[in-house]
């Protein structure tokens, strides 16, 4: 089972909460839109916090069975 974050670029407004909450998994790109840089560097709980704190609902955290 792994936790995979997804970012909806249309909804993202570049607030940047996720950059800090997801501990290195997410950065803002040159357009100021959140992008996954390393999905493994944050724990599932941290990714869920990033999902919860996103002000536009742009982050989805999926639980995937291998």
């Amino acid at each position, binding site marked *: 089972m792994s936790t995979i974050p997804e970012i909806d670029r249309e909804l993202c*407004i570049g*607030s940047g909460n996720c950059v*800090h909450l997801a501990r290195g998994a997410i950065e803002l790109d040159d357009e100021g839109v959140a992008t996954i840089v390393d999905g493994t560097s944050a724990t599932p709980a941290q990714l869920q916090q990033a999902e919860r704190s996103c002000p536009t*609902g742009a982050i989805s955290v999926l639980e995937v069975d291998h």
Partner: protein
Amino acid sequence: MTPAGWPSVPRAVDDTRPREVIVVGGGTAAHRCAVELRRDGFDGKVTLASGESQPPYDRTLVSKDMLADHTADAVALSERCEYERWDIDLRLDLRAECVDRDSRVVGLSDGSTERYDRLALCVGGRPVVPPELDAPGVIVLREAEHAARLRKGMVAGRHLVVIGGGFIGGEVATAAIRSGLRVTLVEAAAQMLEPILGDLVGARVAQLHRDNGVTVRTGTPANAVSSKGDGFEVSLADGAVVDADIVVLGVGMAPNIDWLDGSGLCLDKGVVTDEYCQSSADNIFAAGDCARWWHPDYGELCRVEHWDTAGRHGAAAAKAILGNQQSFAPLPFFWSDQHGVRFQWAGHAPSWDDIRIEGDAPDCFVARYFRSGRLAGVFVVGQPRVFARARRELVETASTRR
């Protein structure tokens, strides 16, 4: 562009590289300022002095998850170990009490003084508590401990009265209904959110609350709150007297600037800054809810109480401190979650000439606010993707104005 009334003698802007930066505050502006200093390569001393007992956390959850869920702790914006990793001296339970601009010293609540090359004021605001409503046990929401206190009292069947029909009031009402309490919301204006969004939109928000079981009383301020037995008696201007087990006040906030009286800083409903976050004193910057900054797109001083804006503001102050100043011209944005519906606002519309609303349902509609024929703001309920498009429309409108 500098605010009207700015010192007419140009400030002697300090071009020397700072070696010590003190950031005062415990919210997102303070956190972002400190972190961005390091991310932008500053290697001098950074102190983050917060008056709270825990590191900066997501304050927006104080009126949301932290009321809904008994297990919800504060969500720290960065863990303590990360402040160590960045070599940010995080000092808690420490308030700034005075500033000596000439000596560049800030006095702190433990009696110590700290010298700074640059000072960032990110002290936010405090809930307004009118004396006539200030009975012992009345709850205001600002900090994690307030949420914990309120959550403890939210037992099913109790009657909660929330005074104030703004976003705090709406979210408290939401959490209380979800927890099985009886809820009465009291709003002085003709409708909930009327001062910010007008009465048409306000009426829909009030309807959403009524549809979810909240008793909404508008057009009547609360005149007094007094203790009665284990609870309270709330007296309304329309003559009604309402008994309550819990009273929550959500009647606005004021910037935390009283302690700066006598500092010589230009203060006017906030710490006044130019578009680069610089106050009237060189070497002192301000960001977040306490700051009233010159917004170049709107040609006026702005102070907003928005989480998203505050974080960006802290980062902008960090850049200005390092000499990489950029004009701080964000598109104001805020959101609120009420009865399972997301409200989203973007834009700047302290007044408007016209509002156009699409959609009939109280939990699904779009309201566009126009000033002088131009789209100035959008308020979208229950449609995040529509909001995203409307917000982009506003961004384009703002950029054509420059």
